[in-house]
């Protein structure tokens, strides 16, 4: 496995110490890392899951708008940040691995450096506790 860019390495280290759930994705949409607070929301320990590629990721979670209606992929804050290259925020419902539905707020922003898009970092929290 090739070394990740320093920008992603530092973000992973930063995320390790935070209490807010954080996802770190690469420029292909592969989920490279999520921290311990995110494990509780996603229902899966990172040590068990490891890196999750984008195709696999899409099949692992079901997402809807906050009102329960269908949510097009291009509305997901992570997708907006990744494809559109701009920060995005939104509320949505997610069904985790353990089949528990949660309503969460997500803020995602692109990691652009040296003229390249390296990936996306997303932080999220349950709406009830916001």
């Amino acid at each position, binding site marked *: 496995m090739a070394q990740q860019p320093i920008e992603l390495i530092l973000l992973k280290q*930063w995320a390790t110490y935070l209490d807010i759930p954080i996802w770190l994705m690469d420029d292909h949409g592969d989920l490279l890392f999520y921290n311990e607070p995110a494990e509780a929301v996603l229902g899966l320990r990172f040590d068990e899951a490891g890196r999750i590629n984008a195709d696999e990721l899409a099949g692992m979670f079901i997402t809807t708008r906050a009102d329960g209606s269908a949510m097009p992929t291009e509305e997901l804050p992570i997708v907006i940040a990744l494809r559109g290259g701009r920060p995005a925020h939104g509320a949505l419902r997610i069904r985790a691995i353990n089949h528990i539905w949660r309503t969460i707020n997500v803020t995602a922003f692109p990691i652009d450096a040296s003229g390249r898009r390296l990936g996306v970092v997303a932080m999220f929290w349950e709406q009830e506790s916001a």
Partner: protein
Amino acid sequence: MRITLWGTRGSLAAAGPDTVVYGGDTSSVEVRATDGAAIVLDAGSGIRKLSAELDGLPRIDILLTHLHMDHIQGLGFFTPLFDDDVEVHVWGPASATQSLEERLARYLSPPLFPVRLRDLANVALHDLAPGHFTVGPFTVSADFVCHPGLTFGYRIAANGATLAYLPDHEPALGVPHFPDSPEWTSGFDLAEGVDVLIHDAQFTDDEYAQRRGWGHSTFSQVAAFAEMAGVGTLVTFHHDPSHDDATLDAITKRFAARANPFSFVPGKAGTTFEL
């Protein structure tokens, strides 16, 4: 490839009778290919003495890892800069806001220096993005590494030999159990499998506890990094200005006694490696 250490000190020059063995000049390393072509790594105060060794070369390339003072303070005393018969190319990490010329000119201009960088017609400045490029017989890889401010490490290949130069590097920062896997270790790709790794070893473990986040490594951290990267020879570098020869002798003697899976050479000014 021939590598010569001209400045091995970190942070601040530390000339005096107590530092003659390891050297008091700040970072500067000469790299020569078999055809005589030269790359200079960093322009700390050590570059001043190197000037005379480069007489007659039509082109000299200086690769700056970053613009902290101890890595550029010798630039104004590098005599080829004032020789119109020599092309001097200075490479350094590109910033999103200011060119390399603008940033270097903050030092190379009054009131900090009497000569303006823009008045040196034979100097070309190159804003460098992470990636690979060639300079004469050298293939150079540049990548950002963990150190405050934009900082490159370099990997240089020529004549079948490889060198990695990471003089200011704190790969253990924020890693709960260092080393992490290669995928998540700053500088790994630059250092993997090189013949010689010149690496920051500024602090002892005790000192590091008070200086976490300053951008430097301990001997034990660099040992773990070098072992993971599978380097042939580790050269410890960027010695703390408060460490005199006796202190460094004691530290390096303990370090050499470990069962290191690589050759170990303490970085001393004037040391030359033939690869």
